């Protein structure tokens, strides 16, 4: 028994090493004086200084965050409405059709989504840049939010709605005072998923950006192509740390909600 467990831990350890080693390798050389990733000659923060003095880069970071926040807020709103629509669809065939349409968007490759958005935007004459990137991000985030919210709705007993109606609630009150509070954990999960999807999207953004507008992933890609500068490493390190912070915040959020209101999933798990 003990032996089995040690083997399992060793395996797990190896997997994590393989996954994280390149990242730590990259982080390590972001402190390298030599400016290469071959041999370490001494510690420096020069590359970080370079990142922070790079005005263009700072603008891109801010743009990336703005696109991520805006697109995840809007897609969360749309996704919740969508999930409610799917939930309240009575006809089985219609419900399945809606769900399939949603899932197809989830599984289709980014390249195809990106290319088709490029075609769409050029067709209807939307200038490539901030707006096109924002629209594309909203579009690929909505299905994610729907998928995170829908299970919460299905978990909700339909008698909650009956009970609220019975106690005098109009449809609006039922939605605001019963349904939305119940699915709040799903809404948060959807929001954070949309946020991370938007932050690290490369393929779709690569297709639909233009006119001098860029996001971090696209920028890092183009810089890395021009020749490796350790400022890219420094930037990647910063992004990694920020992502880690978001994951931790999300973790505390979902745990906190689960604990404070230990209903449905909370208790049973």
């Amino acid at each position, binding site marked *: 028994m003990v032996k089995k467990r040690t083997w399992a831990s060793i395996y797990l350890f190896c997997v994590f090493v393989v996954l994280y080693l390149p990242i730590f390798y990259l982080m390590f050389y972001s402190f390298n004086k030599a400016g290469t990733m071959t041999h370490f000659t001494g510690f420096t923060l020069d590359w970080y200084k370079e990142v922070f003095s790079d005005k263009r880069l700072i603008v891109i970071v801010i743009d990336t965050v703005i696109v991520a926040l805006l697109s995840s807020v809007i897609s969360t709103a749309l996704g919740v409405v969508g999930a409610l629509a799917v939930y309240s669809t009575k006809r089985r065939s219609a419900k399945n059709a809606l769900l399939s349409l949603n899932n197809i968007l989830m599984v289709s490759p980014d390249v195809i989504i990106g290319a088709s958005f490029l075609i769409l935007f050029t067709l209807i004459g939307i200038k490539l840049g901030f707006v096109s990137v924002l629209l594309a991000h909203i579009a690929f985030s909505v299905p994610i939010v729907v998928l995170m919210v829908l299970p919460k709705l299905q978990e909700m*007993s339909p*008698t*909650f709605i*009956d*009970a*609220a*109606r*019975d*106690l*005098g*609630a*109009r449809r609006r*009150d039922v939605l605001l*005072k*019963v349904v939305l*509070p*119940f699915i*709040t954990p799903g809404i948060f999960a959807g929001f954070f998923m949309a946020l991370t999807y938007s932050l690290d999207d490369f393929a779709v953004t690569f297709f639909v950006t233009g006119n001098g507008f860029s996001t971090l992933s696209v920028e890092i890609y183009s810089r890395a192509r021009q020749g490796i500068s350790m400022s890219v490493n420094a930037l990647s390190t910063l992004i990694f740390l920020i992502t880690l912070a978001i994951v931790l915040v999300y973790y505390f959020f979902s745990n906190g909600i689960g604990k404070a*209101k*230990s*209903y*449905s999933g*909370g*208790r049973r798990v």
Partner: protein
Amino acid sequence: MAEKMMIQFDHVTKKFDGETILRDISFDIERGKFYTLLGPSGCGKTTILRLIAGFLEPTEGTLTFDGQLVNKIPPNKRQVNTVFQDYALFPHLNVFENVAFGLRINKLASKEIAPRVKEALHFVNLDGYQNREISDLSGGQKQRVAIARAIVNRPQVLLLDEPLSALDLKLRTAMQFELRQLQRRLGITFIFVTHDQEEALAMSDEIFVLNQGKIEQSGSPRSIYDEPINRFVADFIGESNIIPGKMPQDRVVSFAGKTFNCVDQGFNKNESVEVVIRPEDLELKQRGEGLLQVRVESQLFRGVHYEIIGKDEAGNSWMIHSTKSAKINDEIGLYFEPEAIHIMRHGESEEDFDRRLESYEGADHD
């Protein structure tokens, strides 16, 4: 009289996807009484409650409250509250907020809400539970919160859908008593749904016995128990011996190859009938005494009484409840009073049945 008649079902039919669930149901609910809808699972009890609450609309017929047609009035506009079978308490709200839900929806001032919630919780013996979370409550406590959440709105009618079925036997019996007390104190109408006949007999002013979407019989627990209209009701309400018989003349019935005096009349000469005698109305006698001779086939000790099964000379089985025990294969005598015999006519409607009973119950008093 019109004042007292609160809810009226007039030839109500309910169909789901073309399948008839309730057939041409008519009944009246008066103010301030405890009603029970009793019937086996799937007979349409919940459907009737949902029609009253407004979650469903009748397919045909009319539903009126105080003479007003309410077929299309939504549930939030009805002076009716429901205690749901699964309680349906809101998990994101604590006990206080659950009970206050209806008051907040109706925009009562918070000054008034707190005392009303307290009062409601007091009514269901949950003083001091305001700040508990729903997930921390036991089944019985959830039950009480659900009742408090409904009565805090001071409804005219409280609907309870099998509220006790999830509780264990002891708690269930205690809650039966409490619910009956609560109904008396509040003075409002309770419509209670159950498939448990003992529960129905113990609690109700009036029982509606339902079967396959139809009301088989309605009346006080006593009258339904003593005078079931047909085999279904007799079987469903308690144990009974149902024996085929004939009515040679008024107040005389023959079955098991013998004739007996009874109190029923108004039958055609020699009409075939079904005879009902409750097991507890049969008295054990020595062999050769009593009105009927049976051979004991089996005996079970039931705690309060013995349940004895015997067979008479004509081959009918008799179930006897007695505090005395018998010996298997012994011949024993059975005695019963003429009043213990109840005669059921084949396929009689409830109206005819009531009219017939009234005719000779009136005559009895002369």
